[in-house]
């Protein structure tokens, strides 16, 4: 590719990017899976790396005596990570191609960083799990798939990496493919794609591999660019958590009262009959404002301001839904919780809880079981959840939560738990049901 072609492509990408859509994906892998190399490769091949960044990485690689440019150095941010040569926190990366902008949540793979992976997966449309072709599926790759499934990441890609080190052998790939497909039947993975790649050599990352003519599926980049995510959102069940009451109190807008928030589900239209929870009062949508314009519809994830026809007492933490389609307010919450701090979660513990725009306190009533994320075994003998452990927990909250099952709506089905003394986020919850 000549320099000129490269530049034109990049300029075209630049001018198009205002209208392109967005894919958020999470990667997981350990030091040796070549995850950082793969991300470096995606950034490099999509021309998202600048000359000074590449030069810095080349210089560091040389000074360390490597034979090749270590693309992993592009993504290891914090100094302590560079020193230890591992990725310990979630890092966000950005690149764009002519069709899409991508946000990568790059997370560490080790079991002691499960909480970081849960964090990265929480906002992802797609999860990318890497395995080393020489080793096949490991406990780690299974765990990554389990976490992505628990977090309801709708699309999963299993990238079988380092195919160059197994002579691009189809049999090796097929064996891993079959084994993983078998394992995935136990999980909730609506869409799975398995791709043989070499991140180091670039096979099937952006360019189709000349070494693996037996593989007829898409390259990784092609799949990332084309996977359909628009239909992953719930456009049926209207959920609008009230975030902020807009009241100008100015002469010009004396009577204006609007409810600011981000649409969590469904499509809202002026004229719709709505119910405000938890009060149960009904009204009609008078108008939906987006800055100084009125819109005819609002859908996820738009941030808008909704005006109602009636002057109701609506405040932050309330939820606007449709009259015949509203969640049932509940103080008894059954949820999967990922615990994120050293001091274990125990029954009788009291915590602060934040669910959509609603804050309350929660009491841990029972820990039903701890889920072994490697084997899916449910340990019902457990009395507590330790750091990075995931389990099924019953909570009682001080006020009703206006929630849906997480499997139905990731926004109204999720919450965080906060230690009231330290203020630290200590748990992430995915609601099974309110009851």
């Amino acid at each position, binding site marked *: 590719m000549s320099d000129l072609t490269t530049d034109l492509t*990049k300029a075209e990408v*630049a*001018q198009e990017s*205002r*209208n*392109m*859509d*967005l894919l958020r994906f999470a990667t997981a892998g350990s030091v040796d899976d070549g995850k950082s190399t793969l991300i470096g490769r995606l950034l490099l091949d999509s021309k998202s790396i600048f000359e*000074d*960044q590449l030069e810095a990485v080349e210089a560091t690689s040389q000074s360390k005596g490597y034979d090749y440019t270590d693309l992993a150095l592009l*993504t*290891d*941010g*914090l100094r*302590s990570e560079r020193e230890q040569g591992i990725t310990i*926190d*979630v890092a*966000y*990366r*950005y690149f*764009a191609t002519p069709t899409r*902008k991508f946000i990568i949540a790059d997370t560490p793979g080790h079991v002691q960083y499960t*909480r*970081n992976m*849960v*964090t990265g997966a*929480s*906002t992802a449309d797609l999860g990318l799990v890497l395995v080393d072709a020489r080793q096949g599926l490991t406990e780690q790759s299974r765990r990554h798939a389990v976490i992505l499934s628990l977090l309801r990441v709708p699309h999963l890609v299993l990238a079988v990496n380092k195919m160059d080190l197994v002579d691009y052998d189809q049999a090796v790939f097929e064996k891993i493919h079959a084994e993983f497909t078998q394992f995935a039947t136990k999980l909730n993975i609506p869409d799975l794609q398995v791709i043989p790649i070499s991140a180091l050599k670039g096979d099937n990352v952006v360019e189709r591999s000349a070494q693996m003519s037996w593989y007829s599926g898409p390259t990784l980049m092609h799949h990332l660019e084309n996977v359909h995510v*628009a239909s992953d*959102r719930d456009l049926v069940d209207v959920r609008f958590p009230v*975030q*902020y009451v*807009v*009241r100008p109190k*100015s002469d*010009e807008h004396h009577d*204006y009262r609007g409810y*600011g928030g981000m649409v969590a589900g469904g*499509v809202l239209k002026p004229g719709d009959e709505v119910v405000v929870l938890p009060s149960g009062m009904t009204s009609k949508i008078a108008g939906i404002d*987006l*800055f*100084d*314009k009125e*819109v*005819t*519809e609002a*859908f996820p*994830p*738009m*941030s808008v301001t909704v005006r109602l026809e009636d002057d109701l007492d609506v405040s932050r933490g309330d939820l606007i839904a449709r009259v015949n389609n509203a969640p049932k307010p509940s103080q008894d919450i059954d949820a999967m919780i990922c615990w994120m701090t050293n001091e274990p979660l125990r029954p009788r513990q009291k915590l*602060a809880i*934040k669910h*959509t725009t609603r804050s309350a306190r929660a009491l841990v009533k029972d820990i039903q079981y701890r889920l072994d994320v490697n084997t899916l075994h449910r340990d019902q003998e457990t009395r507590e959840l330790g750091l990075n452990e995931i389990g099924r927990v019953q909570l009682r909250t001080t006020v009703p939560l206006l929630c849906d099952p997480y499997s139905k709506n990731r*926004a109204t089905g*999720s*919450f*965080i738990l906060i230690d009231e003394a330290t*203020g*630290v*986020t200590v748990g992430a919850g995915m609601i099974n049901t309110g009851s």
Partner: protein
Amino acid sequence: MTATHADYRLSQLDQLEAESIHIFREVAAEFEKPVLMFSGGKDSIVMMRLAEKAFYPAKIPFPVLQVDTGYDFPEVIACRDNWVNRLGARLIVASVEEAIKDGIVIDDGKTSRNRLQIGTLLNALEEGGFTAAFGGGRRDEEKARAKERVYSHRDEFGQWDPKNQRPELWSLYNGRIHEGEHMRIFPISNWTELDIWHYIGREGIEIPSIYFSHQRRVFERDGMLLTESDYNPLRAGETATERTVRFRTVGDLTLTGCVESEADTIDKIIDEIAIARVTERGATRGDDRFSEAAMEDRKKEGYF
């Protein structure tokens, strides 16, 4: 009314806008005393626009804080004043000069104004009793920023502890702080430089004129083109010449370099960035070049 979205898809720029508005509202709802840190640069102007949208038709419910280095470009100050006046926002200016006079920070003649800004800023936040400070940091700017949270906790010394950050999940932000602590809020974390330019173009909003191509007397120092100014006396061997330039970032004028450019419109700037070979900070910010971890060090101390 605007057109119906037949396929219920939001462009990535609309998604970024929606996410940022959500963050502004969340902070306004949960923090007692937020403040918007305004540097005069394009990123903080986009922040002003997002804040304007988040609360319209009400005024933005927090003041705007600017740290005046004493070495600011006059074009930037003019733009700041236009924005503040149009939004009817309250402006607080924290002056580095005054902080030096009051002994809050020490000017030893070697420390850059950007570094002296840190102490001045922390002092202004403390004096104002601000519990949340919006900043225009973007994660694509620099490796250390790639791991920073949208809500970035600062202890009572204003320090950031990168190894001990709170997990941040879904769009559920944890704003709990103790007395004397505060939170830095980065509503445009997920925007890239290109997104910022597209947004400025789309919204048709005012930015300081120095971002566009203009004639300026400049001289070369350490491989950068710096503006001729009383604050920045020429050293032996340096000569100033008039060139056609523009700035890619805005900061202390003694340290902020410009690039030769004919780009006098947003579209031309976007084309220029698209084929740029060097990141915006790498090209024009003397303060980031001292070490690979320069940004991380300054951030830990409480830099924006």
